[in-house]
């Protein structure tokens, strides 16, 4: 049998596969029904899911509640938009967004990682607020209007070229980016480094006595989270054709936290479930009433009361037990097989 942390991560992968399955079925339906609205909505959900994933890296693994994670999402989006308006190159935009968020993440990490708990939440909130207001007041960045006129991209992917204007193609591209990010982050948390980060969340005071530096792993965790937000943020103007300072406002950061809590903190994949759920709820409820925020607030309250561990938390324990049983059976079978051979 494997370690619980490995079992837990494998369970997350199963939920990832389930979401993929559901997603692809929905896409097939959308294509069959000639829909573009829901495809684009799904793409947006995935992009916002990247921001939520970034929040979960910090909250679920680093034990750090960021109330300003939209800062990096916004930086990624703005850099991408700025590049694309000059040079319509997908790869250049992605590279620039990655580079700038890396830098911003390091600076932000140096500031925020000096404190913990409520102070961390407030500092991250403050940093995002400051940058958002600066952007809001900078004419070169479009001020309150944001940047419009991001051209529709042709994206060369080796053998094929996809258009960002093609809802299906861009959805699949976004799904691929999210898959890569999810896989990379999931991998990182199964390494010795990841174990130290998880240990820091569980019992920070004990970790230095085991010989581990506490600042370094936290810093890496913070920067990785910033990168995930920035990279998905870079996709945003490709989908919508514009960026606006609202992307960095507290509403965005707060929504991302809600998505993670709805989906399940510390599961990585919960962030994507939460993002899909919240995005579609907003759209559906919003089409019936202007007061959709009330409805969503009520749903959120009930979700916290009745599913404190989120959607994933409801089904995960039994899935983990199954995985453990499966492991035990395969182990037993292997021992039997090798025993018989011996």
């Amino acid at each position, binding site marked *: 049998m494997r370690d619980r942390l490995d079992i837990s991560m494998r369970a997350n992968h199963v939920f990832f596969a389930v979401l993929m399955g559901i997603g692809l079925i929905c896409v097939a339906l959308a294509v069959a029904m000639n829909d573009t609205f829901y495809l684009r909505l799904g793409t947006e959900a995935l992009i916002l899911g990247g921001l939520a994933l970034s929040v979960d890296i910090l909250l679920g693994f680093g034990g750090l509640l960021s109330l300003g994670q939209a800062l990096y999402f916004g930086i990624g989006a703005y850099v991408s938009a700025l590049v694309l308006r000059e040079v319509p190159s997908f790869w250049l935009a992605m590279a620039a967004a990655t580079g700038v968020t890396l830098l911003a993440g390091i600076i932000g990490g140096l500031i925020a990682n000096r404190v913990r708990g409520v102070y961390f939440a407030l500092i991250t909130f403050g940093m995002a607020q400051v940058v958002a207001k600066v952007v809001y007041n900078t004419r070169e960045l479009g001020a309150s209007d944001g940047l419009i006129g991001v051209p529709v991209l042709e994206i060369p992917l080796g053998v094929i070229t996809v258009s960002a204007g093609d809802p299906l193609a861009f959805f699949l591209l976004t799904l691929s980016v999210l898959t890569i990010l999810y896989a990379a982050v999931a991998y990182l948390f199964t390494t010795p480094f990841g174990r130290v980060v998880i240990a820091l969340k*569980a019992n920070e005071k004990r970790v230095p006595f085991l010989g581990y530096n*506490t600042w370094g792993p936290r810093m890496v965790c913070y920067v990785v989270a910033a990168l995930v937000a920035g990279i998905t943020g870079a996709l945003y103007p490709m989908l919508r054709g514009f960026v606006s300072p609202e992307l960095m406002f507290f509403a965005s950061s707060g929504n991302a936290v809600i998505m993670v809590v709805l989906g399940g903190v510390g599961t990585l994949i919960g962030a994507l479930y939460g993002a899909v759920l919240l995005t579609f709820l907003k759209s559906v409820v919003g089409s019936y009433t202007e007061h959709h925020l009330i409805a969503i607030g009520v749903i959120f309250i009930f979700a916290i009361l009745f599913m404190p561990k989120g959607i994933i938390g409801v089904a995960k324990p039994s899935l983990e037990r199954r995985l453990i049983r499966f492991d035990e059976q395969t182990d037993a079978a292997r021992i039997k097989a090798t025993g018989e051979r011996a």
Partner: protein
Amino acid sequence: MKPILHTENLSIAFGGLKAVDAISMSATPHEITTVIGPNGAGKTTLFNLISGALKPGSGKVYLDGKDVTRFGPAQLQHAGLARSFQITNLFFEMTVRENLRLASQILEPISHAVRPLRRTGRAARKVDELIERFDFHDKVHEQVGYLSHGEQRRLEIAMCLACEPKLLMLDEPTQGMSHADTDETEELIKSLTQNVSILLIEHDIGIVMSVSDHVIVMHQGQKIADGTPAEVRANPAVQAAYFGHG
């Protein structure tokens, strides 16, 4: 023999309270040096000063002849020091093996930090060795929070051994243990001196007398006696301050 650890006039005060007051002491390699003293004598605080958990107000700490006074806990760990805690201090939501694995992976080079967790190699071997030695076979995948108190205390020691320290500091390892567990732990501690030097805090006088090579007695932050178990037992000041209470 050159001491593995020695302190010079180590002191710290909390407000007006001199919790550790000019303690000079040393520990000999491959011996068991035990710090005793009544409740509140300053034993744990002395451990905190030596292990980098607290910075001393004045005085020096030398590990293997090297001045480590300003070292933090992680640096001290790299210098060869490991400590356990009086109040069990583990990763309670993780399993026994995950705890041991976490402590053992320090043996592997930093370049392995973002490679897959290896099922073989030095850390994995150390984990297996500790599971064997501390008899955790049936509990490897148990969450530490669900272990019995005695098992948790045992794991606390195992965690310290994972990094193969030169000096092992144990703060009341048998605290709250059953008689059987206490006897077992006593045997274990004795057997460890082959590989490490031990600095021990212990309340059980029976254990102190049977395992210690050297005893240091603290009272109200100060060292009031220092010697072999027999010498210390015969010391009138110790009898007044310590044995008098029991």
